[in-house]
Structures are given as C-alpha cells and as structure tokens.
C-alpha cells in the first residue's frame, strides 16, 4: 500500500527547510523556485502552510505530450521533464497551486514523493509533515478538510488598526 504525505495542521512555523531539502534533492541546488513543496506565509494572519501535491492526478489528462504519469510503485504523479514542453496546462488545472514551472527551463516541477523516501520530512523540525499509511493519512486529511469549514472566532480582529 503506497504511503501518503500529509500535513499536521498548526504545526508549521514557516521555516522553509522542506523547501530547501526538496530543491536540493531534485535539482542539486537550494532555491524555492525549484521546489515541489512551497511554504506560504500570509502577512497579518497566523498562517504558515506548506503547499504540496495531493497526487490527485488532474494534471495527467491535460498534458498534451503525455509527460505526466502515475508511478505505480509510490502512487505519486510524476513529470517526465525531458518530454515536458512547459505549456503550463498542468499549472492551470492544479486546484491548489502545487504544480509550478521552474524559472530556468520553464518546465513543470512537482512533488514526486522522492520515489517513496521524501526528503522534506527528514528536515522538518516540527514534524509538521508526515509520510504515513493510508489509514493514518485519512485522519489528517479529514482534519485538514474540516478546518476549511471552521467558523471564525468572534471577535476576529487579526489586523484591527494600522499606525
């Protein structure tokens, strides 16, 4: 059974170590623009969130050159960068912003689960990222989805005044 990469809500401190490890492992450089995981920090709001592919596979069908496929071993959706033409269809269709084009060759970059041994979880100081079995993953996934339906705390004044 393939393992699943999940995020534990609220744990991320926004340190970007996962981002550095990802680009280092895949491209031998350290550069957020070459990473399959991206940490978004929202100013004036308590949000630090790692964004990465959920391996849904929506991008597979929109690729005109069949450069995207599912790795049967890991279940990861992977890009063949030799075939990729950089059309950007996959970026357009990705619902969560997990697919990107690198700034140099303008080809698709995404999480491939490092072939089943993700580098990002090794450098996360908060254990905010987990690589777990499907049955454990579903708990975190439901937790994550439930948070989208959270009622805001009242009074919610994240940025009440500027001076």
């Amino acid at each position: 059974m393939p393992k699943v990469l999940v995020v534990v809500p609220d744990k991320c401190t926004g340190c970007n170590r996962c981002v550095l490890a990802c680009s280092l492992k895949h491209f031998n450089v350290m550069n957020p623009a070459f990473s399959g995981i991206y940490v978004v920090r929202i100013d004036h709001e308590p949000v630090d969130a790692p964004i990465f592919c959920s391996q849904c596979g929506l991008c597979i069908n929109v690729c005109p050159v069949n450069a995207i496929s599912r790795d049967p071993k890991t279940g990861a959706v992977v890009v063949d960068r030799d075939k990729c033409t950089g059309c950007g269809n996959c970026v357009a269709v990705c619902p969560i912003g997990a697919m990107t084009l690198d700034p140099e060759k303008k080809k698709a970059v995404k999480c491939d689960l490092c072939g089943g041994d993700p580098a990002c979880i090794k450098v996360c100081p908060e254990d905010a990222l987990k690589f777990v079995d499907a049955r454990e993953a579903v708990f975190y996934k439901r937790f994550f989805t439930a948070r989208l339906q959270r009622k805001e705390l009242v009074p919610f004044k994240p940025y009440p005044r500027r001076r």
Partner: protein
Amino acid sequence: MKWYGYMGKILRVDLSKKKVSVEDLKPEWAKLYLGGAGFGARILWNEMKGGVDPLSPENILVASTGPLTGTLVPSSGSIFYQFKSPLTGAWGEARSGGKFGPMLKFAGFDMIIITGKADEPVYLYVEDGSAEIRSAKHLWGKTVHETTDILLEEVGRPEASVACIGPAGEKLVKFSAIMNDYDRAAGRCGGGAVMGSKNLKAIVVFGEKSIVPAKPDKFFEDALEAHEAMKKYVFREILGMLGTIGLVNALNAAGALPTMNFKTTYFPEADSMSGDMLAEKYLVKRRACFGCTIGCGRYSWVPDGKYPTPLHEGPEYETSDMLGVQSLLTDLEAVVRANYLCNNYGLDTISTGNVIAFAIEAFERGYITEEDTGGLKLRWGDPDVILTLVDAIAKREGFGDVLAEGVKKAAEKIGKGADEFAVHVKGLEVPAHDPRGESRNFVIQYAVTPRGACHMHPNWAGAYDFIPLDNGLREFGLPWPPPDKYAEVGVKRGIAYRLLALHGELAESLGICRFPLWGSEDSCLTPKRLARLYSSLTGIEVTGKDLLVAAERAWNLKRAFNIREGFDRRHDTLPKRLLEPVTTGPAKGQAVIKFDELLDEAYEAFGWDKKTGYITRKKLEELGLADVADELAKIGKIA
C-alpha cells in the same frame, strides 16, 4: 569563476549619483573573511576614512550575507548590516533574521554596498541580478508595516522581502532600527538613522536564482547530520516553545534579570512579564526565520482591553525586560503594545527601554521635572509612561527629542551627574544581561565588543559558565570545567572569552544566527561541524581551526576600525551602575570588583596591548593583516 555557496556578486549602489553597478566577489576574500560581517569589516576598513560623520553621505552601509545564508544549514536566515554607528561613533553592526538575507542571495547577490545620499526619498528594488533606484516620496513618514504592505503590492511580487525604516529612522533617532519582513529588527547601533540620513527608505529584494553546493550529496548528508544535532539542542524547550521571552523566569530565578535601570537583578513579579504568561494569553503561533530548526519567533496580539495590538512578531526577552521589567511594569499587554509600536516606528527596543528607565530614574531623583517632560510624570511601573515616551522618541517630540539621542547624550544634556546611572558602553545602551548576576564573561564582552555593550555580538558569553556549556570549543583550548560564574581573575577567563567571541564572529561571517552555537559537541553548530558544512557547500576545504582564524581576522579588523576612530583602552569600560553591588535577590551583593585585572587578562589573550588597548603588530601580521598594521602605524596607533 564558478562560485559554490556564494552567489559571487556584489551590488554597489551610489545614491548620490543614482547609479547601481554589479561587481564580482574577489575569490581570495572567501577564505580570508568568509562573508557577512567579515566582508563588511574589510570593506569599511578599505573604503572609509577615519573620523567620518556617521550621518553624512560618506558613511557606508553594507548589507551582507554569508555563504551559509539561505541554505539547509540550521538557522540560516540572516542578514548583517555594517556601518559606522551614529549612536556611538564606533564600529556599527546589526543582524536580523526573517527571509531578507536568503532572498538577497536568491536575487543573486552576496551583499549590497550603499554609499552617498539620495537628494529625495528613494527605495532600492533588487530582482534577479539587477537593481534600480525608485522614488519613495509616497512612503516617507509611513510606518514599517504600512511601507511593507505598500511596497509588496507595488513591486507585484507578494513573495518579495522588504527591509525598511520607519518614522524613527527618518527622524534620525540614534537607535533606530532597520526592519525587515515586518517585524524582524536589525536593531542596534542606529542603522535606521544611517538609512534615513541617506534618504533610503527601503530595500526590496526578490529573486529565483539558485544557491549551488559544490558537493550536493555530501552537503545534504552534512546538513542532515547538523539537523539531527539540533534536535538535541539544549534550549529547544525554552527558546523554541516559549521564545526568548522564556528567559525572563529562568534568569530571574538565578538572580540575573536586570531590573529598575540595573539597580538590581531580581524582580519578584517577573512571572507577569514571562514567556509562560505570553504563551498563556497572547501567543497566537510560533514563527520561525528562514531555515531555522529552533523557531523562537512569537506571533502574538492583544485582541482587546486597554492596549489592543494587532498580530505581529514578538515580544522578545530583551523587549520584555528592557521595556517592561527595567521600568517595573507588570502589565505584559502594555509591553506587547510597546513592542508593536517600536517595530512599526523602527526603534531598537533595547535602547528604547534603557533610555526610558534612565529617564524615570532621573525624574525620581529630581534631575528632570515635569517642566522638562512636558507635564508627563515619569513613574516606575506606569505603562502609559512607556507608551507615551515610545511615541515621543520615535517622533522626536518634546522630551522624546532628548532621549532620541541615546542615553549617553541624554545624560550629558541633563547634566548634574546623571551619567552616574546612564548604563551604556561607548554610547551603546546595555541590554538585559547582567555581568554581576549572570556571568563575569559579560564584563569582558561589554567592555571590548566593537559595537559597545552587547549581549549577542559576538556571542552570548554567558553560555560558558552560567549554564555551563562548552559549545564544542574544548578541542580548540577552551578551559574546562568552567569557573564559577562569579569568579573574576585567575580563572582563564580571557582565554575562554576569546574562543567564545571567535565562535560568535564565525556565525556572523558565515551568515547564520548565533542561537545554534550553544550546546555540546553533539548538540550545536560547533566550529568543526561548521567547517564540514562550509567545505561541502563551497568546495573550499577548511578545518574548524581555519574558520576560527578567519573569525579572528574579522574580530581584529573591527577593533582596528575603532582604533582608527580614536577608541582605545580608556573606552573599554563598564558603566558605574554595573560596578555597584546588586541590591536584592539571589545575586544580592554581587559586584564587579577586579575590572582592570580582568581586562588585562582579556587583552593578553587577544594579543592586544594592555596599556593602550591597541592591537600588536605581531597579532595583525600573524593574521595576514600587515596592511592594516601599516595603516595603524601611520597614525601611531599600534603596539
């Protein structure tokens, strides 16, 4: 030349001529000065003359990163500024975290050298290897948060990083800070005023260039090893979970919490100002700087009540003590608010807290009256006094204008012997670590640190005998076990302090935070571990000892800078207040007694002349700095 770890490019900005140019990094500089403050020290020595007015166009502002900045090395999110300090007239430097340093490297530069003065407000926009000077007329007078908001929208890069000054920097408040990523402060020495004097409101950086390691697999392996070491970091609980403000209760319990303008080192109500209180009531989440495994940053707010405060980062330990405990405050909400105001105005919370506590004491003694303060009664423990004075200092209004000059000048202006309780060294306000209660290492550190009294530059000297920790320095000759924290002479303090200082200089030059330096062989970034990381990252093979030699080069260059500015042993002092006995608490009765002997020991270890405080030619030549020795000889200031 292909650079690894380094970006290999320097951005030079002449604001007077409105010109930007790109230079190559000199290959031989890497091994000699490593980067960061080491580069800055060499540049300021080479390109500035002695005696320059710090607020004139002749002052140079260097914003530098090190080779490890922005990499997978733990706590790599640093930016270092070097300049001549308008507060002290001496060597000025300040460090900040956040992501500005890494982003500067992703934009393709190791550092920016800024000279001259713009004829009207400008900001610098740096993106992917190029830069331009743009008008900042619309930003002048705006706060740090406003400026950052506007600039991020204006440049159209929401992921860019902004370093800017607030109204305090514009008004040339002598201890104004350079702020980046909203709430991260390069606070000390008045870098904000230097930017203000150059009419430079902000620097915005964005880039998508890569930091390339020489041996990617080896570097990844070394970084993972360092990551594992940092999992055992001894301050993980206190700094990570409670933030630096977690030190309030810890230091108070040891009788080392500076209180009431350093009259004592114990505050019975410290818990009301502690990290536990912050976590319980106002902390929203923890926020780490780029690449950090510790994550000491706080993201906090005060949602309602008398002092409502928006979400922002802080307060730190220094802020809680200097703006709170020093004035006997017991209301943490007011400190969170004061911290927010200081961040937003661009003020150093340490110096601000120090001058305010000084003013309250001066008022209490009757040296100043309501006539001087514009009707404000300065009382201990009154939150509104703090908040009013923060406002007045940032805007230089009324009495705030006196305090905005720093505690040394304010004491001179007030006269009547007010300098007796003005707690500073070389004009830099003493921070919230006390040599009497915490460790006598601070006696040496406060006296000799190039920028004046500082607890963090070059290193937290208390780690050695207060905790105690060896920081992996035993193999380089650190005396072990450490002496009693109150012991003064005859316990090899000079030898120990030299190594602690060089280890700290190493962090400043390599471009990382100094928090991960403290621990034992297997739980921190020791010189050996740093050498391994530096070697596989840059492809330049070095040992821990090589690194410490480079660090000593920077340490002595900064000293040489100060000597050129006219500083010598006479300026390596402690304020009178720190020589007086502590009045209450566990450290009651503790005082610094053998100051001169302690300083002698330190000079001896550094290779400096005991009589004058000048560096010996032997030391400089040993470090390959013969040219510096020649320069100093020309003005007759070498031993």
